[in-house]
């Protein structure tokens, strides 16, 4: 359970988050949609404590993480896995080392156990046997899947996805969506997916929230999103440049 209240963040001259309220219940997948530059990624980075808000509160299972000391925050972070937009693989390490880095740093597992776990996670994302490759030689879709394998290596309770399907071909995008769904079913994780890809959003969401002008302007199930009368959501879902949201 993640509870966000009145979250505000100014970056430079821009008020990126201007009082975000959002609840994410245990075991559900919430899609946060919104235009590029509306602070979706910034919101994710706040949830995992990579950014500190100017005001507001974020509770993870009742624990306030805003203003929490780094050491305690690290304990919270270990319950999270995050898939970054560009996958953020460590390019000095091999794929296998990337997936195993958290295991080696945090858990007292011997080498064989780490290898086994890495191989299993890579298999889950459909990339068995690529341990020895370097991230630089992977395609965009493969990088994302390795990033996902790394995010789930430590059996997280929460997974944060930053634009998981952006820049992928439609077939690979669907494969990633399937993975997100299957991970939720397999691990029972709570997920927050940030995206502006509506096809993907409908496939993975239990609930959808729309972020606009630094606020959550709508939340609802995918069905409610389809049938809502909220003009901003209708415009966004339809992908229209005319409506209450100005395109430029």
């Amino acid at each position: 359970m993640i509870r966000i209240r009145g979250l505000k963040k100014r970056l430079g001259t821009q008020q990126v988050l201007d009082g975000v309220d959002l609840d994410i219940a245990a075991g559900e997948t919430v899609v946060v949609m919104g235009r590029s530059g509306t602070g979706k990624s910034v919101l994710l980075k706040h949830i995992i404590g990579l950014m500190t808000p100017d005001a507001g509160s974020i509770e993870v299972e009742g624990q306030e993480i805003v203003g929490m000391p780094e050491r305690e925050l690290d304990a919270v972070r270990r319950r999270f896995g995050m898939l970054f937009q560009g996958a953020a693989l460590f390019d000095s390490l091999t794929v296998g080392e990337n997936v195993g880095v958290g295991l080696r740093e945090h858990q007292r597992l011997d080498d064989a156990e780490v290898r086994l776990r890495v191989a299993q996670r890579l298999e889950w994302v459909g990339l068995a046997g690529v341990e020895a490759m370097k991230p630089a030689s992977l395609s965009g879709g493969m990088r994302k899947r390795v990033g996902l394998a790394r995010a789930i290596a430590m059996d997280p309770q929460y997974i944060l996805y930053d634009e998981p399907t952006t820049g992928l071909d439609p077939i690979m995008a669907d494969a990633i969506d399937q993975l997100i769904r299957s991970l939720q079913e397999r691990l029972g994780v709570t997920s927050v997916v940030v995206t502006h890809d509506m096809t993907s959003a409908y496939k993975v969401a239990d609930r959808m929230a729309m972020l606009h002008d630094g606020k959550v302007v709508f939340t609802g199930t995918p069905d409610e999103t389809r049938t809502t009368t909220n003009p901003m959501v209708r415009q966004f879902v339809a992908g229209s440049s005319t409506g209450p949201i100005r395109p430029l």
Partner: protein
Amino acid sequence: MEDFLPVRGVRYVRARALDWVAEVGRVTLLLRDVARFLTPGLRSFDRVVQQMSAIGVGSLWLVLVVSLFTGAVAAVQAAYQFTSVVPMRYLGSVILRSVIIELGPVLTALVIGGRVGASIAAELGTMKVTEQIDALRAMAIHPVRYLVVPRVVAAVVMLPIITIFADAIAIFGGYVVAITSIGVTPHTYTQSLKDFFLLKDLWSGLIKAFFFGGIIGTMGCYYGFATEGGAEGVGIATTRAVVASCVLVLISDYVLAHVLFRFVFAE
């Protein structure tokens, strides 16, 4: 009033001075973190060894060439200045002392500052702009422990070691020139080295190298972490790391010379 030039000038100087103070503060905080994560950072010794190899072994050829010619030039210059004033039998001692006290540590630090400071800043800067540093933090791995401690420790350990190597090569370079073109006999040169060698000179050079290593490692990491905004930002960070390393090496060289020869090793 707004455009009154002196006012703008004062405002600019004040802003830059504040920036500078803030920068010193941030470097201090980084050093505090390095101290805090020193023991846990050293526990993964593989990464330290890897950095030692990148910083030390990787720089050997460059240092070899630079030192060889430094020694050779020192011999030529000293011989020129000695002409009809100082007997050439002192040539070895002058090369020896100028190399181990000053030229060896400083030139090594400047060369390594360029090579290693730049590569550290570029690597960490790229990691910063591609969210790899965020990814580490998201996995509850402190970037200072994982990335900075191995680099700073490796630089601090390797700089004195490379300096010893550089000293030896430079003295050899001087030897070759002294014998082949100045007409000093091998025996005279080596005797001069033996007669004037002081252990404290060597120590002073190595102590300097130790600090220079710390400066190079810290500046590379600091500017790498401070990188903002893509490839251009990485370029800027790299330049800044090299400039800051070199300037601080020269400034601290003066300060250390003062402290070492006026107080620590004073007769």
